[in-house]
């Protein structure tokens, strides 16, 4: 009965490989939470109940040539698709952190603007709340995505941490 025994051995090896991946992933998950600010509550890293669960705040700004930097409310039927994309980006950004970028959001907003404003620069600001490990006070990390008014939108990114000292 060599054949069934070999099959059983192959199953054990298969299961062992699965368990090895299962064991290694949480360490990768931790690195992602530190480097990409992914959510410890999701993505099966077993880091639930390690940090408070904050939903990022996402704000969209338009640089009006006369009025300057103005925050866009994304209200009204013309912004329906932009608002849907905003919700999708918030949901994905909460979990995947800086692994997702708001390029699609910027595109939808630009498409929804009046024709005369479509070449205005746009700015998407993502605010991520956290509790500072040293001071145990609420702090916020800010990511700014800048979209210039060019045929091919270019994204510049600034990251800034507001410590809670």
């Amino acid at each position, binding site marked *: 009965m060599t054949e069934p025994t070999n099959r059983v051995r192959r199953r*054990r090896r298969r299961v*062992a490989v699965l368990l090895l991946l299962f064991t290694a992933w949480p360490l990768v998950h931790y690195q992602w939470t530190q480097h990409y600010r992914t959510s410890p509550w999701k993505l*099966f*890293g077993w880091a639930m109940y390690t940090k408070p669960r904050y939903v990022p705040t996402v704000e969209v700004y338009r640089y009006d040539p006369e009025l300057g930097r103005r925050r866009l409310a994304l209200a009204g039927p013309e912004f329906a698709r932009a608002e849907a994309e905003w919700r999708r980006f918030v949901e994905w950004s909460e979990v995947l952190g800086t692994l997702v970028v708001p390029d699609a959001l910027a595109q939808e907003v630009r498409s929804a603007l009046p024709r005369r404003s479509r070449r205005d620069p746009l700015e998407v600001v993502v605010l991520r709340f956290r509790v500072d490990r040293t001071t145990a006070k609420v702090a916020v990390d800010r990511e700014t995505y800048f979209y210039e008014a060019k045929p091919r939108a270019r994204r510049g990114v600034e990251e800034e941490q507001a410590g809670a000292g």
Partner: protein
Amino acid sequence: MRTKPRPEPLQVNALQRIDDAIAAVLGVFRSVPPGGEGQAAAAGSVLAMERDRCRIFERILLLHLAVRMGTMAYPDPVPGSLEAWGLGLAATAALALGFWPPARRAALALAFVLLCGLLWTTFPQTSNHGFLELWCVLLLLASGVGTSGAGAGAPGEAEALALQAIRASLAIVLFYTGVQKVLHGTYFGGDFLAIEVAMKPEFAKVFGWLASPEEIARIEALDPSVVGAGPFRTDAPLFLLASNLVYAFELVAPLLLVWPRTRRWAVLAVLAFTASIQSGAREFFFGALLVNGMLLYWPRNLHARVWPVFALFYVGLLFQRVFAPDALVAR
């Protein structure tokens, strides 16, 4: 006449060593006969117990999936509710198939496909226990549970392998919940528990007695949505002790589960620990999944005795969602 080339001795030895290492590691998670290691229990009786236990574990898991997916169709229609209804019905079909021995593997395969679909549609917000459900079904399939014919191996062998893998997975999950708390560093000063007390009244009820009323009032008065609010930290001795015991327990419990002499106590301790957390978190589906898995560590086949409790629990949850959906939120 030689029909295939004989492998080189070095290759055979390396594979043999790998197989021996795998068997040794998985063997740590094998079922322990009643009375412990020293008792002479026939291997066949252990395999028979594992076969029976696995069958009940599977059916409870399929019932869990049917109720969880079914309750997503209630009580209010949401966008995509047609899919939610389809999912619930298909999961119920998988449960029904699971009671028919020739279709056992097909039931698991259907459950696997449904769970992959659920993962696809809910990603990235998929719950961790949703992944754990998928993982258990995957391990059952990968171990060959439900396979018939010459490739099945000795009766109960596939089930024993599956249960060893599921036990190992639960120990890994429990251990990593502790490791992650240490790595993130939010339990040494009671930071996380303090924030939860400030954010959630139900946590304040569970953990509020660990510090003075004045300290609890100070923490509850902090607004976690305001930059600069804090510190979310306390020097109340009981609060700090409880906070540090949480990850210490999660790091030690898997070792106690693995060691045969302490296995029963470890199961009871893990279940009590989970109940205390879930009294605040109210994640009923996760709690039920964990209990179903933890009972696999019990030396005897406890599943054979407690499955009616699981059945009542899930039917109760279904009735609650249908007739009294506002009574509680089951997650």
